[in-house]
């Protein structure tokens, strides 16, 4: 199977949030990297998981499928899933696929953590 062309780094955000910084391509082949990042972010006390798409270079429909799978995992654990750093192009894809109705999109990290 082709290698994932993405790096995902998990760090602490404010207010018991974990931030996943995404750098590269989100395709079906990054399932392992994405689920590892989610597992690292899924710590006791985590309230929100925030995806930073500032380094997103490419996304295909397989990648959108992985995001909805991550969303379900987050909902099952009671975590709020939010995102920021999307360019206008990727915001439109979230809107087209209606993922933006389930994953809150924000302009910056502070707003994504606050959920406002």
């Amino acid at each position: 199977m082709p290698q994932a062309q993405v790096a995902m780094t998990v760090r602490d955000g404010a207010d018991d949030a974990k931030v996943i910084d995404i750098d590269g391509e989100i395709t079906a082949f990054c399932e392992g990297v994405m689920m590892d990042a989610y597992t690292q972010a899924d710590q006791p006390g985590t309230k929100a998981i925030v995806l930073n798409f500032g380094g997103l270079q490419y996304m295909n429909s397989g990648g959108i499928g992985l995001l909805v799978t991550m969303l379900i995992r987050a909902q099952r654990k009671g975590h709020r899933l939010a995102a920021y750093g999307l360019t206008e192009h990727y915001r439109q894809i979230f809107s087209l696929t209606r993922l933006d109705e389930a994953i809150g999109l924000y302009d910056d990290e502070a707003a994504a953590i606050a959920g406002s």
Partner: protein
Amino acid sequence: MTEERIEPTVPADKANWAPHVERLAAGGVNVGGRRLNGPQQGFGPMWQKTYKVRIPGVAPERVISEWKANYGSFWPSHSRFNAPVAGIQPGEVGNIQSMQVLSTGIMVLYTDDTSFSFMTPEGHPFAGWITFSAYDDGGTVGQVQLIIRPSDPLWDLVFLFGFGKGEDMMWQHTLRSLAAHFDIRTEPETNLVKVDKKRLWRNARNITKNSAIGSAIHILGTPVRALRRPS
């Protein structure tokens, strides 16, 4: 030293995605005027269904090119796919007729050299995405992956009582036909994962757009439409 990211003027995947639409403009019965539904707009449990077939010796790009060109011909005979005139291109709408009675459709959400995806409109039996892909995994693999929920309570019941199994058979048939197109006789692998067992009751009202009900009303209305047609 600070590394500065330079945003490309046109995103690399811009031409691969359908343009944004609120509602489908084109399409037949149960398609035109409908919104698109992802899995989170559906009702029943969410499934990730993956079907794979090995097609050794054929490049993934060639598998996808042939798949796009002959898409409907790989389907079982009880279902018909009327491909968009422009072919499988982002934003195009295809109509589906199943068992002579059920009319629905899909919109082409995404395409590239090694994959293409469809998204379903309101009323379709399931809400979600279907991705067709080919990739090298020690030899070429052709794959269909659905991330879906039954659209409404009626379709949820229908899935429970056999439609889900019928859908598995349909995609297995499709992959057998795809492999046979390249003179390969083989059996597909199937992997079904229930990602979310919850029902999304907030979407129960989707039943008002149910395509089986819409198709029945359309069929019953045929004589009336014929009478109204100017002679």
